[in-house]
């Protein structure tokens, strides 16, 4: 039982991170029907900028006196940086291709992913970038179960971000505009919603969430590396599809499911086949519910 609970905690932490990344995929997909392969790189870039900012704060000496402020500032800086990056990437690599076939944009995204990860390698070096380790050290122990402060921090921050995103999308005017654009671009243009602005905004928000996930990842695993975006990117994309692509609640649930399946697969059956279990669940769900768990929410003009 203790073993089960411990694995459950592990699963929630990992799943939360996947969910944050998956949101970016699903939101972008919702508005322009593009699998943004470069999204994993936004996640990695967020991790890097977080590491750079934290190291800088430690270097000037603010870290010891105001750790919480520094951490918050790092989060904000990384999220802003990634939003800035994503908006530019969208303008350069995706916007000119919006009228062409979706595969062209997909390829451009793949090229962007290769370009960004190698750009990070060249500017930041091939070695891992280390996160300062003093933050949130320590853990609660309940018998065999242990929960680190970091895990609590990550899960609660993830929850806060998810709730605020939900509020943004479902309770504000901007959110309504985003949903409208996702459902029908022509109609939303008719009611004076600038689709370019909304698309940029969607990219910015998605990348910002990925950046937050990147910093949490760095804190949790101790370091970041230029190629770290790729595998979580694929997992998060699976999570987005599992939940029903374009569906924000679906992405959260999908992320948690993929995280759990991976942890329980590794913990109870076999570590080397854990990705197989995740994909089998994905295929199984899609076989019986071809639109994902929560159903999709996109503008599909072809049907």
């Amino acid at each position, binding site marked *: 039982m203790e073993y089960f609970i411990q694995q459950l905690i592990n699963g929630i932490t990992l799943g939360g991170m996947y969910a944050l990344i998956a949101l970016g995929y699903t939101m972008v997909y919702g508005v322009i029907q593009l699998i943004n392969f470069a999204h994993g790189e936004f996640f990695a870039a967020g991790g890097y900028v977080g590491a750079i900012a934290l190291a800088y704060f430690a270097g000037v000496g603010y870290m010891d006196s105001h750790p919480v402020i520094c951490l918050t500032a790092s989060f904000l800086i990384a999220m802003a940086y990634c939003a800035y990056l994503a908006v530019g990437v969208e303008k350069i690599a995706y916007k*000119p291709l919006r009228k062409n076939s979706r595969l062209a944009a997909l390829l451009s995204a793949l090229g962007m992913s290769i370009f960004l990860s190698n750009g990070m390698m060249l500017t930041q070096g091939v070695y891992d970038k280390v996160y300062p380790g003093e933050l949130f050290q320590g853990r609660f122990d309940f018998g*065999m179960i242990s929960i*680190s402060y970091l895990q609590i921090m990550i899960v609660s921050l993830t929850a806060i971000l998810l709730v605020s995103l939900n509020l943004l999308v479902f309770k504000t005017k901007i959110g309504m505009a985003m949903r409208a654009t996702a459902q029908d671009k022509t109609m939303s243009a008719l009611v004076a919603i600038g689709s370019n602005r909304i698309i940029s905004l969607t990219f910015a928000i998605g990348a910002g969430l990925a950046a937050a996930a990147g910093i949490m990842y760095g804190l949790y695993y101790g370091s970041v*590396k230029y190629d770290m975006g*790729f*595998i979580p990117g694929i997992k998060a994309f699976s999570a987005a599809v599992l939940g029903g692509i374009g569906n924000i609640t679906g992405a959260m649930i999908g992320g948690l499911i993929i995280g759990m399946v991976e942890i329980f697969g590794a913990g109870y059956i076999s570590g080397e086949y854990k990705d197989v279990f995740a994909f089998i669940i994905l295929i199984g769900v899609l076989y019986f519910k071809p639109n994902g768990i929560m159903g999709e929410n996109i503008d599909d003009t072809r049907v």
Partner: protein
Amino acid sequence: MKKRIVSILAMGLILVPFLVGGVCAKTLTIGSMSPLTGPYASDGTDIKNGVLTAISVFEAAGGIAGYDKIELSAQDTACDPRQAVAAANKLINLEVAGVVGAYCSSSTIPASEVLAEEDIIMITPASTNEQVTDRGLPYMFRMCGRDDDQAPAAAKFMKESLGAKTIFIVDDKTTYSQGLADGVKKAAIEMGMEVVNHEHVNQGDKDFSAVLTMAKQANADIFYMSLQGYSPAAMMTLQAKRLGMESQIVTQDAVFQPKYMEVAKEAAEGAYLTYGFTDETTPEYKAFEKIYVPKYGKIAAYATYAYDSATALLKAIQAAGTTDPAKVKAELMKLDFQGVAKHVKFAANGDSGSSYIAYKVVDGKFVPYWEPIKGLIK
């Protein structure tokens, strides 16, 4: 219109690297193969840097008679067999005198088959899999140790020095890491230790919480990590300590990288690892340190081996006075000198012997701790 501008912008990005480059006269070219991109780029870069250092040392000493210049053609294998074969063919085309590389055993093996067709000497600084030299290729040499030497040494260390009774083994499913893990398992069982579990993770995994929870539950004396590269090892160490695992961590030579302690920080303290014995007090090591550190930073796992490999190759070419492979090989077999990482002397099959000892992480440094014959090192 807009689209054009943007593309032109990007085009500019591409042009920059072309601005750098040069052409030279009568040169001796040697090749290196290592992953310069992809997940093992860090280790691959160390290898390239080691070879470059060796070349700069030779050039500073007056070069090799008959050649104005020694040049390195560093090829990227990305730890992918197909790219390794392409790189090997490229090096053949460049008519290199010899090759230092590759890193991953899975790249070295197919690349060496290609190089063997043209009788090109290959010295691997890092591929420890037995198959590398056991296939009987005449021009295949190895500077590092062998997995089937390392595994018994590691098992002996755990039994005799740490008094272990139970072991939990984890590997990450590469030719190297799995081969070593299997070897350790076999040796441990032969020595009467109990292997409670042998788990696997995948390459590229970063989250090890599931397998670590399992290990914590098992509570074996030793937690043996056989992982390719320092990066996953550091992450696993960090996560293990955060989870409160109490087993003693023991690991292997791929982790011998100062970055391991940098990433894992305090969690790495007290961890043991087996690695070929490098005497850091020799004048050779000191001299190497003086050249390498200011240029490339801390000395890492395979930089020294790559340096020795390149030095051996260049020495042999110098002695032979030609790049004819048969003559260079004869000179290589005659070599007997103190290198930076080890004493270099090749056996008939191309191996240069292993001298695995156990290191302990103390205050963020690897300190020699135990050796198989005399026991503890004071």
